[in-house]
């Protein structure tokens, strides 16, 4: 006889009923349970993405961490642990500080310019005009052209002797004659050179900003904008209080991509100036490439490129947290 927890008469019926259920559950494999099957299905669907991120993002990242704390070079497969020596070596170099500073300037200035130009372009493309489809197609050309080709085109436009920009400016009398001090040397004067490389990055990427904005804008129900108009909201008020809050998740994802791409952009600087003159356009990716690949010091190159990580991480965390909060 079994006493009930309440001290009443024994409940034999309950015990009899419980035994078969427990027996059924125990006799069945756990993986056949509906919950387990659902979980397995979910994980199967997730697996390719996890594998992709693990192999193509996680593994290289871990490998670069390993390289950064080793004395690895391109010709020696056996590397020894050197702790934070490579980071210290980078930090001690004046060139590294210039590259770090230029990377920040490059990213921030390019971000602001792309935001302004992208927004303007997006709103221009929203207007109705003749040939709108053609224009929409044309504006994405900078973004779709192979970077080597477009940057070489810019190299010619910035050429010290045959610059199309200079000949045009000279034509309207804004600059001095070739060979005089009034003739700008776009890639030769430190500030102009930095401006020139940022401009090419902006030229390449602002259509992307415009497309992101355009995609977001067209997803806003027209009645929301109409009602704001009826309520007397001006263009700027509608943009700030209606459009931006509604498309913010899209904007944040676009911003995330753009920041990563800009900060790690090697091609524009490498092809236009290679970091010169006198490191005036040196940025962390080009310095990492010169030291890690061209000079063969993989460990120090990896350490320099990892300095991008603390720059990117807080920005990414802030953006992703903001995005998640909005999803809830």
């Amino acid at each position: 006889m079994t006493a009930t927890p309440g001290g009443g008469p024994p409940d034999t019926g309950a015990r009899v009923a419980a035994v078969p259920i427990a027996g059924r559950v125990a006799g069945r494999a756990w993986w056949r349970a509906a919950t387990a099957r659902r979980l397995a299905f979910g994980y199967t669907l997730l697996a390719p993405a996890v594998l992709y991120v693990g192999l193509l993002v996680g593994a290289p990242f871990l490998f670069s961490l390993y390289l950064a704390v080793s004395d690895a070079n391109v010709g020696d497969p056996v590397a020894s642990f050197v702790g934070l020596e490579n980071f210290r070596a980078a930090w001690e170099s004046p060139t590294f500080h210039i590259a770090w500073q230029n990377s920040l300037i490059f990213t921030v200035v390019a971000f602001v310019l792309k935001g302004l130009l992208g927004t303007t372009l997006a709103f221009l493309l929203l207007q109705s005009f003749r040939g709108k489809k053609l224009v929409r197609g044309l504006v994405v050309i900078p973004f779709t052209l192979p970077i080597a080709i477009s940057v070489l085109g810019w190299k010619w436009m910035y050429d010290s002797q045959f610059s199309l920009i200079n000949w045009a400016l000279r034509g309207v009398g804004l600059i001095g004659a070739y060979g005089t001090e009034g003739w700008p040397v776009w890639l030769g004067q430190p500030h102009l050179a930095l401006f020139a490389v940022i401009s090419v990055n902006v030229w390449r990427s602002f259509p992307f900003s415009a497309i992101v904005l355009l995609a977001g804008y067209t997803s806003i129900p027209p009645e929301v904008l109409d009602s704001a108009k009826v309520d007397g909201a001006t263009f700027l008020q509608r943009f700030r209080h209606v459009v931006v809050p509604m498309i913010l998740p899209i904007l944040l994802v676009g911003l995330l991509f753009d920041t990563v791409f800009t900060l790690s952009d090697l091609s524009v600087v490498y092809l236009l100036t290679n970091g010169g003159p006198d490191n005036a356009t040196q940025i962390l990716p080009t310095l990492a490439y010169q030291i890690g690949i061209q000079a063969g010091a993989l460990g120090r190159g990896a350490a320099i490129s990892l300095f991008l990580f603390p720059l990117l991480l807080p920005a990414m965390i802030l953006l992703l947290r903001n995005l998640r909060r909005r999803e809830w």
Partner: protein
Amino acid sequence: MSAHVETTTNNELTRRGFLKTTGAGAVSASLATMLSARQAPAQIRGTSLRIIQWSHFVPAYDVWFDKMAREWGEKNGVRVRVDHIPHLELPARYAAEFAAGAGHDLIYYVGTILTGLYYKNLADVTDISDQMAKKYGGWIPEAKSHSLIEGRWYAIPDFYILAPMLWRKDLFDSEKLPRPDTWEQARVAARTLKKKGHPTGIAFSHCNDSNLFLRSVLFSHGAREADPSGENILIDSKEMREGLKFLKAMFDEGMTPEVFSWDDASDNRYLASGVACWIHDAISAYRTTEDTNPPVFQHTHLWLEPQGLPNLRVSIANANAYAIWKFSKNQAAAKEFLLHLADKWLEGMTGSRGYNMPFLNDFYKKPMPVIGTDPKLQILQEFPKIVAFFGYPGPFTTPIQEVVATFVFPDMCTRVARGQSPDEALRWAMGEYRRIYAKHKRA
């Protein structure tokens, strides 16, 4: 009668004698052919050889090279594949191939000579280097700079790209200026002709020309980079300071700020456009001018590296070399191919329109192909006496490679040209050199 006997005798010998005679003849002929036109060993038949090459500045050379490689492959039963890629992409490619432990059998260095970095993973090619030296009168002394490590050859020097003075005789003559045989004469000419709208220029930027030619100017003034052991930095010297002062004066008087933005082709265009009074460049500039501006080409003459100090000419050149990966499964074919290339080297020089300069002494026998027959170019035959490479007078070591890759030397000169004192610029450069050397010593 005797004739008949002879004939008979001959007839009697026909069966055996004919076979013997013709057999012996055929063997002798084959041996002679093998000796004269080198026959590769049978073991490489049926194999394949992958070669990575740059895209030569003279496209005709690539055409010649590919044809030569194909013919060699057909003759020896080797499938040869030649990949041409831009030279600036080669170092990244080698890093990837090394990491993967697979790729091309025969690799090619252009300017960026990475023998010091990779030598533990490169095949020892001392055997074929010795064969080539024996056959062609030995290597010029500077050939060792980037190929010899710890007494063994790990690369086979192919050619170097010399950089003479290319000067406009018509402009010099108009001002009664002597040809630029010294840097002082070059400076005076630039100062005089800049006023007439014909300045000069040497790249002060992050490009290979800048690394090469600014060194040539300063080393010809007695400055040096590292000692013969390659261990000690020598840039901090009185000669370097004097050289930097000279460079600053030459920039102020004879150049424009354009030079801070130049790439490796800018000076070619400067000459071809008719603006420059002289440039210091490879003969690609001469060829470009020939193709694009014949009137200017007619007045363009070439001369040796100018003297800085009396009788001191140091011409820092861009060296190119071959190496074989240790992981290559076909090292035998790669070595045979390099021996064949040495045999065909003079043809290659013709293919390059005189651009490729040899590392083997016998190829300097006058008249050399192309340059020996062109009166304007004949002076180039004197370059082996003055040619040197990065690290001069020391070898091209891995720390020097990093100094070159990070453009420390051109940046030092740029700082001086922009107004920093030679002392300050040199102090900065010494800091960079020391840091780089220290890192390599620790590693």
